[in-house]
């Protein structure tokens, strides 16, 4: 055995714990002095175990790899260093630092929210929780001896002992073993990381298990179904794939997966999105007040991080249901170093559900996701992800005089994400390069009457470092959306054009930990638009949180802008075709968010929260109203204001998990074009847009009855506004003396004032019952359920031309099977 790779073994049956620690550290230091790679294997020892258990550690193992001295690994490292030069001053004199990746020992997945605690010889504690990539980072440490402990619900705790030198940057990666101890069915102790009532300044963190308790006609959960159970999110019905977040339009939402833009991620049938729970590690849902690095959208951000896949063994799953079938597989490409994960879903609505639902359901959709994740070295990781989705269907009712055109859209995205903990620099660096494309079509597949496409590359470099008690995030990005549309056919003012809106941005976001209870985050984003007339935009944002174990209060504010957006004719809910356009130069859409919240956890099983928000929206570009019975791509400007209040209650007990929420909101847009005075006799016309749902209630419950998991969800929404119609006639433009026998004219709709009618209320009860069977090397899950249990005839859309009503899904029994192997 070479010295540099020597394994130190300790027989510690009779040793005192401090002596053991000292032995470990002495051995480590001797190895360190010689620049050796040191590994320590500590056999089980009763005394040590007793000590460990006193510290709350269930089992002990130690295994670290430490290299000393800076080393620049690649040209990318040079880029990172250049990008991070601004952070060097932060590093000076900030002491030693320990950071690393924490993974699950079974599958190599990054573990999010692991508490990593360092205890020095005086018993003083320092800690950090792992982020979405499983990275922890504890800066500003004095040289000395430390005991590191890591704990995570469902996993054995981890402990290690280490010595840090002055200004040393130590990278320590470790894995946690799944605990053999039987866990309680529901978490009742400890601070939950996510939860239905756990909303902090507009941010709700969602994990796959949160999605799976929402009853859907599929055995796996989906982010789309979860979103419909949130109080501030409005959907126009169970189809169309459109979500309105706290007063914004669907195109005001930024949706990302692994850093890749997904412009229209929701499937045509509203239960499904491009994000099944199988591929999600975590989703951050920001409904207001979001910070950096998010920019270019004014309403919300949904940032999905996918799982990396199993690096230690192969696993797969297949499921069938009357609506969708899915296959998912994952496994190591190089054991413990690289993994691949794939997921493919295909709708079977027309082949299965439509046959027993008394309703035409001409919907086809699917999605495929693949991710390769590799551990390049002990301090760097690389992932390559790709996503493709497609949707096609016809929404609405066909009539004698109205031929409906099918609508379809496709998303394609691919991206690379590289994470490194540079040895020479004291920050965590992330580099992303991605390409996204979304094409929406109206008309026959292959020969659309009109289409709209947005595509482009995006580059971002994000850094995180620490200085004193402050976490600093900073970075730069460059985005180049390219918009093309061909809006011929029945569209007014067809435009064929190419629109490029390149932009580059920088951001800085210090997060001050003022004391143990008080945090304040300030953000400043600066954006420039090369070659365009837009001025440089500065967007300040801030968030302040005061938190104790029982209470949390927070306030937030931010300034946002958007330079590309989608246009829809909102007077026709069945027309979900979105025409993407670029905002006029200079006059970008802008928003100001203000919000405040309070959360109270009076007992481990109950959590309550309230949040109120105000959004001021300016320069919204909405389709100009026209009495021609067709959509126009002419824009009219509107301002808006959104005012809302949401309250949530969450119950976690051993046998029951459930939550209820209520949202009250008021959305008002004010159109201010010159023609408003001509049409309506007023300079500014205020109206409720069609997504102004005043009241929303969601109740979700999940319990286990014998071996059956029972999930129930009831949601209620008050009626949404729509524009009523006086009648129909024709319009002949008499702009001169004409031959009345031959002049051409148009049909015309005589609308009332915009959005003064109110649709009926919406409510629905869904329920599923699921049982899992252990097959030894796998699991079989069987599910039955009912969607719309009491067969509520919820209106989806009104055909204003014929007064015909189009209803959402009636009562639909559903069943599903899923087999998992590992």
């Amino acid at each position: 055995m070479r010295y540099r790779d020597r394994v130190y073994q300790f027989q510690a049956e009779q040793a005192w714990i401090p002596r053991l620690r000292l032995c470990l550290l002495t051995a480590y230091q001797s190895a360190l002095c010689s620049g050796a790679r040191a590994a320590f294997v500590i056999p089980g020892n009763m005394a040590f175990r007793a000590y460990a258990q006193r510290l709350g550690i269930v089992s002990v193992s130690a295994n670290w790899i430490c290299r000393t001295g800076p080393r620049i690994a690649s040209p990318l490292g040079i880029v990172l260093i250049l990008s991070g030069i601004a952070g060097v001053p932060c590093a000076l004199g900030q002491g030693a630092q320990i950071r690393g990746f924490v993974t699950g020992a079974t599958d190599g997945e990054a573990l999010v929210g692991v508490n990593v605690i360092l205890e020095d010889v005086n018993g003083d504690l320092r800690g950090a929780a792992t982020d979405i990539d499983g990275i922890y980072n504890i800066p500003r440490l004095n040289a000395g001896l430390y005991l590191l402990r890591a704990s995570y619900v469902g996993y054995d705790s981890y402990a290690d002992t280490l010595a840090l030198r002055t200004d040393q940057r130590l990278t320590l990666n470790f894995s946690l073993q799944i605990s053999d101890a039987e866990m309680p069915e529901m978490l009742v102790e400890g601070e939950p990381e996510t939860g239905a009532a756990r909303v902090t300044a507009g941010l709700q963190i969602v994990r796959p298990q949160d999605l799976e308790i929402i009853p859907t006609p599929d055995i796996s959960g989906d982010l789309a179904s979860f979103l419909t159970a949130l109080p501030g999110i409005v959907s126009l019905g169970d189809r169309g794939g459109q979500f309105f977040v706290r007063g914004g339009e669907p195109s005001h939402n930024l949706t990302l997966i692994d850093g890749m833009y997904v412009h229209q991620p929701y499937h045509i049938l509203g239960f499904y999105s491009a994000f099944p729970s199988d591929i999600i590690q975590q989703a951050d849902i920001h409904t207001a007040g979001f910070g950096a690095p998010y920019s270019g959208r004014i309403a919300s951000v949904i940032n999905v991080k996918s799982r990396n896949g199993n690096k230690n063994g192969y696993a797969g799953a297949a499921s069938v249901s009357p609506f969708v079938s899915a296959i998912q597989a994952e496994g190591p490409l190089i054991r413990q170093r690289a993994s691949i994960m794939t997921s493919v879903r295909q709708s079977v609505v027309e082949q299965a559900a439509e046959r027993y639902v008394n309703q035409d359901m001409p919907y086809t959709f699917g999605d495929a996701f693949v991710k390769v994740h590799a551990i390049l070295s002990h301090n760097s990781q690389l992932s390559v992800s790709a996503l493709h989705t497609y949707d096609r269907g016809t929404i609405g009712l066909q009539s004698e005089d109205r031929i409906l055109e099918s609508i379809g859209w496709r998303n394609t995205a691919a991206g690379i994400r590289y994470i490194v903990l540079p040895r020479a620099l004291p920050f965590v660096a992330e580099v992303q390069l991605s390409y996204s494309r979304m094409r929406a079509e109206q008309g026959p597949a292959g020969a659309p009457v009109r289409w709209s496409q947005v595509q482009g590359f995006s580059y971002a470099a994000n850094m995180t470092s620490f200085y004193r008690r402050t976490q600093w995030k900073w970075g730069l990005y460059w985005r180049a959306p390219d918009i093309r549309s061909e809006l011929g056919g029945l569209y007014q003012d067809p435009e064929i054009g190419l629109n490029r809106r390149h932009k580059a941005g920088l951001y800085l976001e210090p997060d001050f930990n003022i004391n143990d209870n008080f945090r304040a985050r300030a953000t400043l984003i600066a954006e420039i638009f090369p070659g365009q007339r837009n001025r440089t935009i500065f967007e300040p944002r801030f968030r302040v949180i005061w938190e104790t174990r029982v209470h949390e209060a927070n306030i937030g504010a931010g300034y946002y802008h958007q330079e590309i957006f989608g246009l829809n004719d909102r007077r026709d809910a069945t027309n979900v075709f979105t025409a993407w356009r670029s905002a006029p130069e200079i006059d970008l859409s802008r928003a100001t968010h203000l919000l405040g919240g309070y959360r109270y956890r009076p007992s481990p099983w109950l959590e309550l929260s309230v949040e109120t928000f105000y959004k001021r929206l300016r320069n919204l570009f909405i389709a100009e109203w026209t009495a021609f019975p067709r959509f126009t791509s002419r824009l009219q400007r509107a301002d808006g204001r959104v005012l809302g209040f949401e309250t949530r209650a969450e119950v976690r007990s051993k046998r029951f998990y459930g939550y209820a929420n209520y949202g009250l909101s008021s959305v008002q847009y004010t159109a201010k074009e010159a023609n408003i005075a001509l049409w309506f006799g007023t300079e500014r016309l205020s109206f409720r847009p069609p997504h102004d749902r005043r009241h929303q209630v969601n109740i979700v419950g999940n319990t286990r009855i014998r071996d059956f998991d029972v999930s129930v969800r009831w949601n209620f929404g008050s009626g949404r506004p729509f524009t009523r119609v006086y009648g129909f006639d024709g319009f002949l433009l008499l702009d001169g003396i004409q031959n009345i026998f031959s002049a051409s004219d148009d049909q015309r709709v005589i609308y009332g004032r915009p959005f003064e009618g109110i649709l009926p209320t919406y409510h629905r009860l869904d329920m599923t019952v699921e049982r899992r069977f252990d097959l030894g090397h796998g699991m079989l899950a069987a599910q039955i359920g009912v969607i719309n249990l009491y067969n509520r005839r919820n209106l989806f859309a009104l055909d204003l031309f014929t007064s015909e009503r189009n209803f959402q899904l009636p009562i639909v029994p559903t069943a599903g099977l899923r087999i998992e192997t590992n």
Partner: protein
Amino acid sequence: MTNSSGTFKLLILTMVASLGCAETVDTRLRIDYPYSIYGVMNPKSDTQAVRVFEIKSEIRLVQPEPIDAIVTTLEIESGAHRIWRDSIIQLADGDYRHVYWSLFQPQSGESYLLKTERSDGEAASAQTTIPPYVTLEVLEPDTLRPREALMPVMIHGSPPSMPRIEVEYILAGYRAEGGETFFKPVQFNYVGRPREVDGGALLEIDLIADYSDIYQLFRDDSNVSAEIIDLKEIQVRIHVADGNWVSPVGIFDPNLLVEPGTFSNVENGFGFFGSGYVEATVFRPPVVLLRRAGFYIIGETG
């Protein structure tokens, strides 16, 4: 106990059943207007016509069948009453329309009340006064003013409104390949441009400005040569109309005026019923102006 249990079950059943019901929603606002009408009384024509649309609660293609409407006109001063006849026309796109017509020629200064009445008595009506006649005179241009090429056309009379003034250039050009001659009309709208002068209004056609646009048009067409643009003649057509024929926004933009009621003189209905005629003249400007504007002069080079 049994009774209360049964009542409870009934209550639950009733509640569940009512939950499943759909609420009604009224998509229509009440409107009493029976018709939208579009027509022109033309004193230069012996046939008058008006297009009539029934205002319906559902959008339907117009069928080639009679509609419940009687169209009449009343000449207000004389009291002459006429019942117009229905006809069904088919437009180029195949759709049908109802055009009511009557054989007579109104005279300048007469006022007419057009009434379109349904069998239940609901009626839409509009009134118009036939505008006075005007005459056009092409005046001699002032060729001494440098850097100007204005061609004056005098409109003698007092037109109440001129919703459209067409100035059409009839041009001859040459194909870029082969040199083949072709003729191309280019039309400009001079609405709002005449200025009031003694005895009428003066329209000045700006040859230099128009040539600039014409040249750009030729240059953008890769099939033709922009070097040779020969002006053959200018046709001026002035639409003289009654005093109601004025756009509320100054221009006749269909996207603005399509909104019901924005450009309408119909009582108890929508649309527009006016009167007017087209007065036209044709001329070719003097060579000195053509040369100054930039038009090609045959026989001259460079």
